[in-house]
């Protein structure tokens, strides 16, 4: 089930909220668990078994690690749990990719090619795996206490607001909230506001500019203007799609008393790639830092080892997004940029160059990376790069102009303005409560209108 759908907003959500607030406090974790399984099972019930299996493996492994009598036994429990979870992730997400690469290599060496049947990628498995792994490691490191009971833990892992596309939550951040959390009209109202803002980001901006990006990326020989316009459109689409989803998740959490960590903080205002990763998909950046970069040695082994660890972390982070060489190269691009900035002594928010130059440079690198992120194949990405370099033609073609809708350009302008000037605009405005209510109501009406008019609104991050 997706948030931006009729069945969620006008079916699941009101039913869940009514039941939740009618239920006694002690039954609410169990209710969240049931609702979350219903939410996931709406896609396919058969794959719910995988969610439960990963949850149980991490619960048992963490419990074994917490009770381990020796460091070796603890390590054994952690390794077993992590390997089992990564094994499931590897099978469902990477088996086809690895078999394909192996087959291609075999053919290149003169052997026969081979293939396996297509494997359905269970939605949300990447986020689920990361949360489960972080729980095992946090408990083993004694950063977090083991879950109070199995129901609380299962409810945490499958918590429907963040089950499918994050933010990547950590049990230690929510453990106390499962024991005790507050509910108030004010908190609920804030949740409504965040949810509606996220819905509007998704439906009014991301989905409106999406056709513009799709058309540009479908061109075999885009002109310079088409390639840059398409990349810009995708940059705005991705931000508003994913940040919109995160905002909805945070809003839904607030409606039932949870406070989730923020996942985005105006990433397109960054003046370095280092700063960008402090602002983009913050929960993933933090996860990669704590559970990959630091265990690899972080910056403790000298300059060369630091650059290697940065590169490796980002390449693996890229691979996490999808089994495709384009994601690996996207990760490598960001890893290399981070390493170079480390070498130059760049710190987040402290650029050595004038603001304009460092901002433009950062955004160009980010956009070049998004081409790899969006293109289905490396060949498609290279076609886009040829266009960006002006190797085909320069101006927008007449056919592209005929297909382009003014509403797409309007959404692109609004999205671009909010993405780059949003924080400043917000700082300048003082919003009285009644105006906030009016804004929320207008956004809700506009979103419902657009949702009903278009009827189909999948989230980009579902594929990860």
């Amino acid at each position: 089930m997706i948030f931006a759908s009729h069945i969620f907003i006008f079916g699941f959500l009101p039913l869940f909220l009514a039941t939740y607030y009618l239920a006694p406090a002690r039954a609410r974790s169990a209710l969240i668990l049931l609702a979350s399984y219903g939410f996931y099972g709406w896609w396919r019930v058969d794959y719910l078994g995988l969610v439960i299996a990963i949850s149980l493996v991490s619960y048992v492994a963490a419990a074994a690690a917490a009770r381990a009598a020796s460091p070796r036994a603890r390590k054994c429990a952690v390794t077993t749990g992590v390997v089992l979870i990564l094994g499931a992730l590897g099978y469902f997400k990477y088996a086809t990719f690895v078999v394909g690469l192996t087959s291609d290599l075999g053919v290149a060496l003169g052997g026969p090619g081979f293939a396996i049947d297509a494997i359905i990628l269970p939605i949300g498995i990447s986020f689920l795996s990361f949360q489960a792994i972080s729980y095992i490691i946090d408990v083993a490191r004694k950063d977090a206490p083991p879950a109070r009971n199995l129901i609380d833990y299962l409810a945490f892992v499958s918590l429907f607001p963040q089950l499918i596309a994050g933010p990547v939550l950590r049990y230690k951040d929510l453990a106390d909230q499962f024991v005790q959390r507050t509910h108030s009209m004010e908190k609920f109202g804030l949740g409504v506001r965040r949810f509606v803002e996220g819905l509007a980001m998704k439906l009014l901006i991301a989905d409106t500019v999406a056709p513009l990006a799709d058309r540009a990326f479908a061109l075999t020989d885009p002109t310079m203007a088409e390639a840059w316009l398409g990349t810009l459109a995708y940059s705005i689409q991705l931000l508003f799609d994913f940040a919109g989803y995160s905002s909805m998740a945070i809003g839904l959490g607030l409606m039932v008393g949870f406070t989730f960590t923020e996942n985005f903080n105006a990433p397109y205002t960054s003046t370095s790639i280092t700063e960008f990763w402090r602002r983009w998909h913050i929960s993933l950046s933090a996860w990669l830092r704590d559970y990959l970069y630091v265990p690899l040695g972080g910056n403790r082994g000298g300059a060369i080892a630091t650059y290697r660890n940065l590169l490796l972390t980002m390449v693996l982070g890229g691979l996490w997004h999808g089994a495709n060489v384009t994601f690996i190269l996207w990760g490598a691009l960001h890893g290399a940029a981070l390493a170079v900035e480390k070498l130059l002594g760049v710190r987040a928010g402290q650029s050595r160059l004038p603001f304009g130059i460092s901002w433009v440079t950062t955004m160009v690198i980010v956009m070049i990376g998004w081409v790899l992120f969006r293109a289905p194949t490396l060949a498609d990405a290279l076609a886009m790069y040829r266009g960006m370099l002006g190797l085909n033609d320069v101006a927008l073609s007449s056919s592209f102009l005929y297909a382009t809708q003014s509403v797409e350009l309007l959404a692109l302008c609004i999205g671009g303005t909010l993405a780059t000037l949003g924080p400043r605009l917000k700082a300048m405005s003082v919003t009285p409560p009644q105006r906030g209510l009016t804004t929320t109501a207008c956004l809700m009406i506009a979103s419902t209108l657009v949702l009903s008019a278009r009827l189909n609104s999948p989230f980009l991050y579902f594929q990860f």
Partner: protein
Amino acid sequence: MFNDVQNSLLPTSFALAIAVPAALGLATTELPRADLSVMSGTYQRAYEDRFVDGFPLTEISREAYTALNLALFNQTDPEVVIGADDWLFTTEEFRAPSASVDFAAEIRATADELAQHGIRLVPIIIPDKARIYADKLPRARDAELSVRYDAALDVLATEGFEGLDPATWLTAARAEGATFMRTDTHWSPFGAEQVANRISDALGARGSLNFETQTLAAQDFDGDLMPFVDTGRFAPWVGIPQEHVDLSQTTKRDDDGLGLFGDEEIGIVLVGTSFSARAEFNFDGALKAATGFDVVNLAVEGQGPFAPMSEALADGVLTEIAPQFVIWEIPERYIQPWRLK
């Protein structure tokens, strides 16, 4: 106290806004067939589809969104271009076709195969509406699309076909009436008749049958592009005006002679697309009236011009009928522009 009311206003409004449609939707949505699988999610998809179909705001939202776009931008959908005086064009005429077909090779192979059975192929390129009514467009099309029609005629000339040029005929006939429908991708009955008359002149043969064409009363006509600009209940304030069509019907005269045992000689088989298949435009009727031949219409809607011809050749229907002529109606927009270079 004031703050309490203030704080509860948004949650209460939101709760009502989602609860009322939910109560209506959940109460009125019928359950799907029980044999659909819950495990694989097909049951859930079916229920969701029904839920959305019954959602009270779906229709009015779609109409309002279209009306808003039309009023603000004079655009409604990437699949339609709105030109001057409410002339609509399909965007298929503004981009290369998705299917890649070697036009020259197709023409050559078809002509050769038919010639083996003594049948003459008469390919007719139907020009884009955007070519005949270019003056209604806000800007010129891409250069490769502009030259596509002439390049297609060059291919036909190279392959030895007589130079039939419907673009010139349809453009000239605009002085007497609209040769394309305003809200539809296709030609008007008048445009179809003009082309049929010119083809008849070019065939160099005339059949012995007599047909008469009756003009029926003008009727309301919703072109195939109207669904993209449908503003529904907002149409009185913002919308594309409906157009009318003068339908016609062609029938054989009763006194016309038949062959022995009532069999008729079929002079023409018509193969093509919706230009020929749709009864409103009466192209086959106009051909009958103009040529005096009976016409078997094998045109098919929605498959482009190449698939119906391949099918007709493959199942042997053309050689079985053995007409004198096979008229192959090929809309320009199905021809790859750069393959003609």
